[in-house]
């Protein structure tokens, strides 16, 4: 209960600061939309030259992309820890966080919240509805619950990987460029996994399981029976990866000695 009330208090503060800089907020919306536009343009241009991508149609690929945007938006809203190393370790902000009686990861997440990212999820759903309508997908009443479950699973996988990467800062305080590059890798979960070499397929499934954020759960809704097994693994993988990340985080915090005096 305490955590819930902390959450809403942070949320209220967040709203106040954001509404103070309304122009910034608008620019952020636009730049989010642009990043989605980049990927859409890529897909649309490519499908101007070919009709099938390894047996997947344009609308199926668009649907996968639309689905991917939803868990990604949830992740982006709550796990904005790209600059954890610089902000919390190098500048010593972590010391402040640790003196408070709330779990440190929870505080960091709330401090860096960026709720405006959720708009990307709306774009994703629009794309899904558009592609789904063209594909004449039929939905069951329980699909909405599976959708929520898959979205949460996908967001947790993302969160797990990036929180785990952030914990590297506890062991080495050097600047690291892994995060932005990992962001590039994470994008490959949006494409049909069977176009990749089996090593990459393995990596995207079990080591950096970004395929569970896009193509696997989306294939359930597309009725691709051969991927159903993987689709249903999504929430489980999410919980496992996030648990590992929290474990690493706790181990890292124990080891943390602070920077400077």
């Amino acid at each position, binding site marked *: 209960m305490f955590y819930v009330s902390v959450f809403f208090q942070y949320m209220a503060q967040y709203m106040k600061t954001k509404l103070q*800089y309304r122009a*910034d907020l608008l*620019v*952020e919306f*636009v*730049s989010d939309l*642009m*990043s989605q*536009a*980049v990927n859409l*343009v*890529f897909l649309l*241009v*490519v499908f*101007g*030259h*070919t009709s*099938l*991508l*390894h047996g997947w149609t344009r609308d199926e690929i668009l649907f996968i992309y639309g689905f991917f945007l939803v868990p990604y938006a949830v992740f982006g809203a709550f796990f904005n820890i790209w600059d954890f190393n610089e902000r919390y370790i190098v500048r010593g902000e972590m010391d402040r966080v640790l003196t408070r009686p709330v779990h440190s990861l929870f505080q960091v997440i709330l401090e860096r919240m960026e709720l405006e990212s959720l708009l990307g999820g709306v774009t994703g759903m629009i794309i899904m509805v558009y592609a789904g309508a063209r594909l004449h997908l039929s939905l069951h009443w329980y699909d909405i619950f599976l959708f929520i479950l898959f979205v949460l699973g996908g967001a947790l996988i993302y969160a797990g990987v990036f929180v785990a990467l952030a914990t590297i800062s506890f062991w080495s305080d*050097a*600047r*690291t*460029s*892994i995060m932005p*590059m*990992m962001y*590039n*890798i994470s994008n*490959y979960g949006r*494409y*049909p996994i069977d*176009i*990749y*070499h089996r090593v*990459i397929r393995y*990596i995207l499934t079990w080591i950096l399981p970004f395929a569970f954020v896009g193509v696997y759960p989306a294939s359930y809704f597309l009725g691709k029976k051969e991927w159903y097994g993987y689709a249903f693994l999504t929430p489980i993988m999410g919980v496992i990866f996030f648990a590992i990340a929290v474990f690493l985080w706790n181990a890292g915090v124990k080891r943390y000695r602070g920077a400077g005096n």
Partner: protein
Amino acid sequence: MDKYMEMIRIRFLMMLAYRTNYYTGILIYAINIAAYYFLWSAIYGGKQTMQGMSMEQMTIYVAISWMARAFYFNNIDREIAMEIREGQVATELIRPYSYLGMKTMQGLGEGIFRLLFLSLPGLFLVALFLPLRFPTDVHTWMFFILSIAFSFIINSELNLLAGIVTFFTLNNEGLLRAKRFIIDLFSGLILPISFYPDWAQAVMKYFPFQGISYIPSMIVTESFRGQAIIDGLLFQFVWCVLLLIPIRLLWRAAKKQLVVQGG
């Protein structure tokens, strides 16, 4: 001149101190290239050529454009924005060198470092797994080197412009992000310009972005030959010069209205 050489050297050494970070960088760039290679293989799907490029050329295109990115890419726009936000720029401005020149040189030091420690080993690594057949003609490589130098200049000039805008807006995270997406899309990094619909190609002729990635990559894949190479290099050179004008004007205006936040 000496002091600028020194800046390149210092930044290079600074990066060298953190070189362990780049071992993972090599791996991750390689994974990036490989993934795009498979994506393009699926897109080609057995077709011999698309837009005049064979799959073999596309493989080189992807590998080179990513590795070239390691060279021309820098964060001087973000650095300038940060120095303005934090007020450091005030002390930088009273020092006896050109602030923008210093930033560019730092970017160059970073670029040279990444070229040696990320691009070259990365290309070697990728060549082990992917069918990369690089051109053997010395002239191709000489044109490529010239072209990639222009890429660096154009990209840095755009970064300086975006950075200077911070003087007026004080916080322009959104603009910096938007610029990155525009460059990813229209520089030819993720998609050769020749794949775009004709009307889009016509529009892009009036923007500098294809000078960043598309032109050097097309030169090295030998998709550009003869006059096309000269035209490409000329395009880059003209933009290198043209972009100096808005930088000059904005910089002059920026210094006049500099507000240092905090004391």
